C-alpha cells in the first residue's frame, strides 16, 4: 500500500489534527426541489418524499423519460428582492439564492448591509462552487442564436454567462464576495471537491470564511445527453419501470435533478470571535481518481478517498457513525461505491447506518454532494438519518448493511453515532471524494 497518511514534515506525530487551523460550519443555504432550508430538506428526506415530477421546463417529447427533480415554482425574487435578475441564467439564480440563504443562516449580512458585530476586520468572504456544466443551456443557446441570426446578433449577455465559472462570478457580484472565487468541475463529485478545496484554503490560512458547495440546473441539453448516454433511469431498458433507487437490485439509472447548496466554512477562532453558532466541524477530506476503467478501478478509488479522509480527520473507522452515500440508482457506480466504502471501513462497514438521499432528491450532479453534506450536518444535530425511499429489493451481495426492504428506513442514531459522519461522492467518470464531518464541539 502506498503511503496515505500525512507525510512527516506535515506536523507533530500526536495526530493529524493537532496544531492546525480548524474548519467549522456556521450555516448553510439550500435550494432544491424538496425544500429551501436545511431543516426543511432534512424533514422531507426523513419523510421519504420524492422530488420527481413531470418536467415543465422543456419539451420532453421524443425522449423516453419525462420526469426529473425540477424546482417548481422557482421564484428567486422571493429570496433576493427586486434587483435585476435578467443578467443571470438559471444556474446563477439558483446559486445566488443559495448564497443569500447561507449568508443569512450563518449570520453574515447580505451585501449592502453592515456586517454583524465582531466580524474580523478585513475578512472577506469567498466562494467555491462545484458544477458539471454551469449552464450548457446558456452555451448552446448562445451558439444557436449566433448560427440562426448571424454572429452580429449573438447575445453578449449569454456570452458572459457561457463561461463555466459564470455562476460563481454572478454570485460574487450579487453578494459582494471579494475573496477567493473558484469553480471546480468533477461531475457528481464536484460539490465535495469544492467543499474540500475551500476547507483546504481555510486550513492553510488563505481564507477565513468561504461559501462552498455546488449548483446545477436542469435543462434540455443535459437531460437529452444523459438519456442518450443510457444513464437516466429507464433510458437503457426502455419501457421498463423507471427505478432510480440506490442499491436496489432493479435500479436502472438516476433521476436528474437541480438546485444549489452552500455551506459557510470558517476558521474556528474567527467564527468564535464573531459569535457565530457552530453547526459542525469539517474534520478531513480525501480525493482519488479511478484511472483504471471498470468497477474494480472505481471501487479502489472510492476506498482510497475514504481512507485518505479518515486519516486526514484522524478518525478510526469505528468512530464513523453513519454514511451519506453518493449512490443514485446508477447500475455500476452504486455497487462500486458500496464495495469501496466497505473495503476502507473494514469491520465497521458491517454495521454502518447508511443513507443515499438521491433516492429522494435524484442526481443533482454538481450540487449533489453539497446536499449530502448539508443534510448530514442536520443529522449530526438531531440524530435522524433519512432512509432510502423506494428500496424494495436490495441488490444481493452488497457489502453494506442496508435494509432488505425499506419503505420506512429513517432511523434515529445512537448518541455515540452522532459524533462523526462520512460523506462520499462518486463521479461516473472516475472522480471520487470523501469528507468527514464532526458534530459541533
Amino acid at each position, binding site marked *: 500500500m*502506498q503511503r496515505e497518511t500525512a507525510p512527516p*514534515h*506535515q*506536523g507533530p506525530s500526536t495526530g493529524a489534527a493537532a*496544531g*492546525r487551523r480548524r474548519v467549522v460550519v456556521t450555516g448553510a443555504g439550500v435550494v432544491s426541489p424538496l425544500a429551501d432550508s436545511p431543516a426543511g430538506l432534512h424533514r422531507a428526506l426523513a419523510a421519504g418524499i420524492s422530488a420527481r415530477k413531470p418536467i415543465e421546463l422543456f419539451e420532453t417529447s*421524443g425522449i423516453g423519460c419525462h420526469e426529473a427533480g425540477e424546482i417548481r415554482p422557482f421564484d428567486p425574487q422571493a429570496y433576493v428582492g427586486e434587483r435585476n435578475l435578467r*443578467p443571470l441564467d438559471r444556474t446563477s439564480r439558483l446559486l445566488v439564492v443559495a448564497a443569500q440563504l447561507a449568508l443569512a443562516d450563518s449570520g453574515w449580512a447580505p451585501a449592502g448591509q453592515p456586517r454583524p458585530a465582531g466580524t474580523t476586520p478585513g475578512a472577506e468572504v469567498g466562494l467555491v462552487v462545484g458544477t458539471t456544466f454551469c449552464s*450548457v443551456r446558456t452555451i*448552446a443557446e*448562445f451558439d*444557436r442564436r*449566433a*448560427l440562426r441570426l448571424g454572429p452580429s446578433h*449573438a447575445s*453578449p449577455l449569454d*456570452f*458572459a454567462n*457561457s*463561461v*463555466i*465559472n*459564470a455562476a*460563481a*462570478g*454572478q454570485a*460574487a457580484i450579487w453578494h459582494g*464576495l*471579494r*475573496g*477567493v*472565487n*473558484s*469553480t*471546480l*468541475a*468533477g461531475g457528481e463529485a*464536484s460539490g465535495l*471537491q469544492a467543499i474540500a478545496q475551500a476547507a*483546504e484554503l481555510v486550513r*492553510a*490560512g*488563505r481564507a477565513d470564511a468561504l461559501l462552498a458547495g455546488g449548483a446545477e440546473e436542469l435543462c434540455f*441539453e*443535459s437531460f*437529452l*445527453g*444523459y438519456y*442518450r*448516454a443510457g444513464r437516466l433511469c429507464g433510458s437503457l431498458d426502455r419501457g421498463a419501470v423507471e427505478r432510480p433507487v440506490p442499491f436496489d437490485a432493479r435500479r436502472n439509472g438516476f433521476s436528474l435533478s437541480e438546485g444549489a447548496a452552500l455551506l459557510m466554512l470558517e476558521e474556528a477562532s474567527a467564527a468564535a470571535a464573531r459569535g457565530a453558532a457552530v453547526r459542525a466541524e469539517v474534520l478531513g477530506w*480525501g*480525493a*482519488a*481518481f479511478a*484511472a483504471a*476503467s471498470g468497477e474494480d478501478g472505481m471501487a*479502489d478509488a472510492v476506498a482510497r478517498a475514504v481512507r485518505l479522509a479518515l486519516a486526514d480527520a484522524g478518525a478510526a473507522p469505528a468512530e464513523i457513525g453513519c454514511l451519506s452515500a453518493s449512490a443514485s440508482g446508477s447500475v455500476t457506480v452504486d455497487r462500486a461505491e458500496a464495495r469501496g466504502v466497505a473495503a476502507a471501513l473494514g469491520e465497521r462497514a458491517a454495521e454502518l447506518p447508511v443513507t443515499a438521499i438521491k433516492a429522494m432528491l435524484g442526481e443533482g450532479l454538481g450540487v449533489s454532494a453539497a446536499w449530502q453534506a448539508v443534510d448530514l450536518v442536520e443529522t449530526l444535530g438531531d440524530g435522524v438519518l433519512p432512509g432510502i425511499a423506494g428500496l424494495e429489493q436490495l441488490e444481493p451481495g452488497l457489502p453494506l448493511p442496508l435494509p432488505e426492504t425499506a419503505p420506512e428506513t429513517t432511523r434515529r442514531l445512537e448518541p455515540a453515532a452522532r459524533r462523526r459522519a462520512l460523506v462520499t461522492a462518486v463521479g461516473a*467518470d*472516475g*472522480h471520487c471524494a470523501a469528507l468527514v464531518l464532526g458534530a459541533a464541539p
Partner: protein
Amino acid sequence: MSAAARARRIAVTGLGAVTPVGTGKEEVWANLLAGRLGFAPVASFDTHAFSVHLGAEVRSFSPAPYVRRLDPTRLGRASQLAIAAARLALADAGLGDEPAPVAAVAPALAGVAMGTTSGEPREVERFDDRYLAGELDLVGAEFMTLYPCHMIAAHVARELGFAGVNTMIPAACAAGNYALAHAVDVLRAGRAELMLAGGADAFSRITYAGFARLGAIAPERCQPFDRRRKGMIPGEGAAVLVLEPLDAARRRGARIYAEVAGYGLSCDAHHMTAAHPEGDGAVRAMSRALADAGVAPEQVSYISAHGTGTPTNDRLEAIAVGRVFGAGTRVPISSIKSMIGHTMGAASAIEAAVCALAVATDEVPPTMGLEDPENDFDYVPNLARRLPVEVAMNNAYAFGGNNASTIFRKCEVA
C-alpha cells in the same frame, strides 16, 4: 500561512506545451524569443459572416504520438491537446512517458489539475448543428462522454495512469493559474507527491462569436499595450507543468526550472466581463501572491502580463501594476498574447511555463507589435531580452472577475 505549510517548497521540473507557434518546450520557447506570430485566417470554421477572420489555431496537430492508451477518436480536441502537453512535460521532466510514466511516484500519489474556459466546446457545437438541422436523433452517448469539461483532467489521468487527486478548474481565462495554485496546495498539504498542472482549450466558434460580438477581436494585429491596439485574437492550445516537492526533485536529480514561490487569488465582484475600474481585484491577487511568496515588489524581475490587447484590459492592468509596483516601475513586462493570441484556459498555463523558462534561462520574450506604448512601462518591445530573472510573476484575469497571480523564483543550487 502556517510555518508547516511553508516548509514544503514546490519545484517546476517539467514543461510541455502545444501552441500556435509550436509544440514542445524547445520549439515554443525559441519561437517566442524570436517574436514569431501564430496568426492566420481561421481554418476550423467559416468566418465569412464575421467582420474579423484571424485566429491563433494549432495547425496540423496530430494526437497520435501522444494519445497511446486511449482512443484519440473518442476524445475531444482539448483533451487531445492536454494529453500531448502532459506527455511532453513528463518526458521533459525526465520521468519517461511509456507505459507507466512515473516510476518515481506511486500512481495514487500522482495527480492532475487542469484549467479551461470552455471545456470541449466543439461537442456542444456538434449538438447545436444537429439541433438546428432537426437531427437530434443523431445525438448519441458521446455527447456526455466527451463534452463535460472534467473529462479533460480525467482523460489526462486515464492516459497516464495517474490515480491521485484529479481536479478540473474551469476558471475561464485565469484557469491555468488557478489549476497551478490548486496543485501547489495539494502538494503542500502532502496529498500528492507529483502533480501535473496546466490548462487547455480548443478553438471554438462559440468563443470567436462571443468576442467578435463584444468587438474585442483585432482585425489584423494583436498589439498589447500599444495606443492603437484593436483587441485580442482568439487562440487555442495547452500547457502542463510538472510540479514536485523541491526536496524530492533534488533527491532524484531532476532539472529544476524554478520554484513556485506563491500565489494569490481574488474576485472583483464587480462585472462579468469588465475588470474593476481601479484594478482592485488584480491588485489584491498580486499583493497576496507577493505576500505568500515573501517577495517584495522591487524583487520581481519580470511580469508576464495578462495583456490581451483589448483597450480595456491593458489600460486597467497597467493601473493595477502601477498600484503594486509604483507608477515609475521599470520592471520588464511582456505579453506573449501578442504572438500566440489568447489561448483562453491554456493562456496562463502557457505563460506560467514562460515564467519558469525565463527564470531558468534569464531571457524574457517580447511584446510584439508595440510601436506606441500607452504607458511609460518597460514592455520589452519587439525584441527578446537577456536579463537576470530571479523572480517572475504571472498575471491572469478572467470573466467572472476571477484574478490569479503566481510567482516563480530561481532555486539556489542545493
